[in-house]
């Protein structure tokens, strides 16, 4: 029996009380570890997003939104000057429009009034849910002035003309794989198209089949697979084809410039802004990443405050408990001092008692942290992202899809997008956060337990030092 074993044994003198203390501390430490796990997971995600965001710059017509670009598009002439700027390795240009199925009624969609209102023989495979307020096409549709959808309504088909269908310049987002046929040539006016397997199935199309868009006939050259619902309802054609058949010769609604290195990203962004003046909005991938991870930064802050709060709460709990215990054992402390124990030794014994409580509480808290870390992280990220997305996408219409393929026949929906600046697609992946419990978490848990025990024992130690054994002798 020594001071340590005596302290440990004292922790269990009153079973019911000890159990209560340990449960309360377990919950407190569990909350702090959960927040620590969430914070770490979010920090890792932010780092991953920033490191993978790439070296691209998105260029859109100034103030562009909701397919209104028909009156203020960029031009291929403007973008050719951008392509010739130093450190710009490539400029991927797209022209996007919406087509309405021939014979269907077309209500005035909120935030999507200015399109060419061209027609197509295709029927979109995308199902529509009617919403009363703002939303994104493919998920919810809202109608100007309210009212209900006509019975013969079908969702519009988004048509995207791009000069580089094979280029994969996106960072994250919906992935699509070309499963049959081949890529179209993005620089030729060839009236060829790539469609999703869902679009093909819905319209009984296969490779070589034709369909109409505007007044032109297009041939299916490639079919891709994707799980992204919006992507399923799109048609990809070459930029010259889209410019020709939509009657928007030389118009471009979006461009993504690639820069040779991250070091030059900022200077090239400035150079493009200077080149295009007030006619374009220029956003670098770095800025987009910062915008995209903004909700995660909020989660990080929330987690940090909760972590500190939980540790402080734990310390206060231990402090009050230890003060109560010292007051209860006042006579015993006096006796220990009378028979030769020093103040330090008695304090140490009580500190061991407090550490015993907190270490057991930490073990329980670790269990809670492991169990709750992932759900709490998801909940915090989802709530934060939803709140931020609602702000950014309010009034949004049909999202534009931009394709960039690679020679591996895989292409992704880019973040440098048209609507919502592509942030939405990054956000889709932000919720995919893995909360892991590593040695660092265990170490933090142990440190938190010791900090709680030591700070919680401080007031008790002062009380112990003040107890005079002579006074205790009189309390008979």
């Amino acid at each position, binding site marked *: 029996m020594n001071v340590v074993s005596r302290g440990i044994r004292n922790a269990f*003198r009153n079973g019911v009380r000890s159990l209560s203390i340990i449960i309360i501390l377990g919950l407190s430490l569990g909350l702090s570890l959960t927040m620590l796990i969430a914070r770490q997971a979010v920090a890792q995600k932010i780092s991953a997003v920033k490191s993978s965001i790439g070296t691209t710059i998105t260029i859109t017509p100034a103030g562009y939104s909701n397919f209104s670009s028909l009156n203020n598009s960029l031009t291929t002439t403007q973008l050719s000057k951008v392509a010739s700027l130093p450190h710009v390795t490539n400029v991927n240009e797209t022209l996007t429009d919406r087509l309405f199925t021939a014979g269907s009624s077309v209500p005035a969609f909120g935030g999507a009034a200015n399109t060419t209102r061209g027609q197509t023989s295709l029927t979109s495979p995308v199902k529509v849910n009617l919403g009363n307020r703002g939303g994104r096409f493919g998920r919810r549709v809202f109608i100007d002035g309210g009212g209900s959808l006509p019975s013969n309504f079908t969702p519009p088909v988004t048509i995207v003309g791009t000069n580089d269908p094979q280029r994969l310049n996106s960072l994250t987002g919906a992935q699509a794989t070309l499963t049959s046929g081949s890529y179209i040539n993005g620089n030729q006016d060839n009236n060829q198209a790539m469609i999703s397997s869902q679009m093909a199935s819905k319209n009984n199309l296969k490779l070589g089949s034709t369909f109409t868009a505007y007044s032109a006939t297009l041939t299916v050259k490639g079919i891709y697979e994707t799980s992204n619902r919006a992507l399923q309802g799109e048609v990809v054609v070459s930029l010259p084809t889209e410019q020709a058949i939509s009657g928007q010769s030389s118009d471009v609604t979006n461009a993504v410039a690639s820069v040779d290195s991250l070091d030059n990203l900022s200077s090239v962004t400035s150079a493009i802004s200077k080149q295009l003046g007030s006619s374009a909005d220029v956003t670098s991938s770095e800025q987009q990443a910062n915008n995209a991870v903004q909700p995660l930064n909020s989660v990080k802050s929330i987690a940090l405050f909760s972590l500190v709060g939980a540790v402080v709460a734990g310390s206060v709990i231990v402090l009050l408990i230890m003060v109560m215990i010292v007051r209860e054992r006042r006579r*015993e402390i006096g006796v*220990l001092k*009378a*028979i*030769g*124990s020093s103040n330090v*030794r008695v304090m140490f014994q009580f500190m061991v008692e407090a550490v015993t409580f907190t270490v057991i509480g930490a073990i329980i808290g670790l269990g809670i942290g492991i169990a709750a870390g992932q759900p709490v992280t998801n909940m915090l990220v989802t709530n934060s992202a939803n709140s931020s997305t609602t702000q950014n996408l309010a009034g949004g219409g049909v999202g534009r899809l931009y394709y960039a393929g690679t020679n591996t026949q895989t292409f992704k929906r880019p973040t440098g997008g048209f609507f919502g600046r592509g942030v939405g697609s990054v956000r889709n992946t932000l919720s995919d956060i893995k909360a892991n419990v590593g040695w660092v978490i265990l170490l933090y848990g142990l440190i938190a337990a010791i900090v709680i025990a030591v700070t919680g024992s401080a007031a008790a130690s002062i009380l112990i030092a003040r107890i005079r054994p*002579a006074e205790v002798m009189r309390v*008979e």
Partner: protein
Amino acid sequence: MLKVKKLTKTFQSGDGRVTALNEVSFNIDEGRFVSVIGKSGSGKTTLLSILGTLEKPTSGTITVDNRELTGLTAKEMVAYRCKQIGFVFQGYNLVPNLTALENVMLPMEFAGVPAKQRIMRAKELLDQVGLVGDKIQRKPGRLSGGEQQRIAIARALANQPKFILADEPTGNLDSETGKKIFDLLHDLSKSQNTTVIVVTHDLSIAGKTDQTFKLEDGKLL
């Protein structure tokens, strides 16, 4: 030899300054069995506390073998209490969640005695005070008052102190058990040459000690 000279202790009370001990002086030879008697509030416990270095006197001196105790630092007082003083209290004051054996081992732990020696010595002492068998592994709550006081005496003797200071050691016991405890203290003081100072109300006990001091209103009569 214990020499107490003009020992005075005053303290502040709600009603003003109270003099608990008023220039008390006496000498006690080594190995003597001494009783201090007096009414409640006469200063008996205060005298015991000062002799045990639990508190300091307002004035006066205490000398043990030519060593002045009133000038000791707090750290020196702890060390002195640990090795030179053994306390026996009226209410036993054993640590409730430790066994009899562990209670006796406590002062030896504070004195830095190795664990094995502590166990051997504690068993020996418990045997001397008549606590044997499985009782030494029992906690105080499962022992009688007399048995608890025996443990307290064994604990007081643990570090072979110069003095045992007993504050009403038989106060909570019936007369028969009280007599046994008194006899035990008496025998141990003789066998171990320990000076025992007992504070008591019991005049029959006081009559059997080597020396008796009577306190009244803080003064030695």
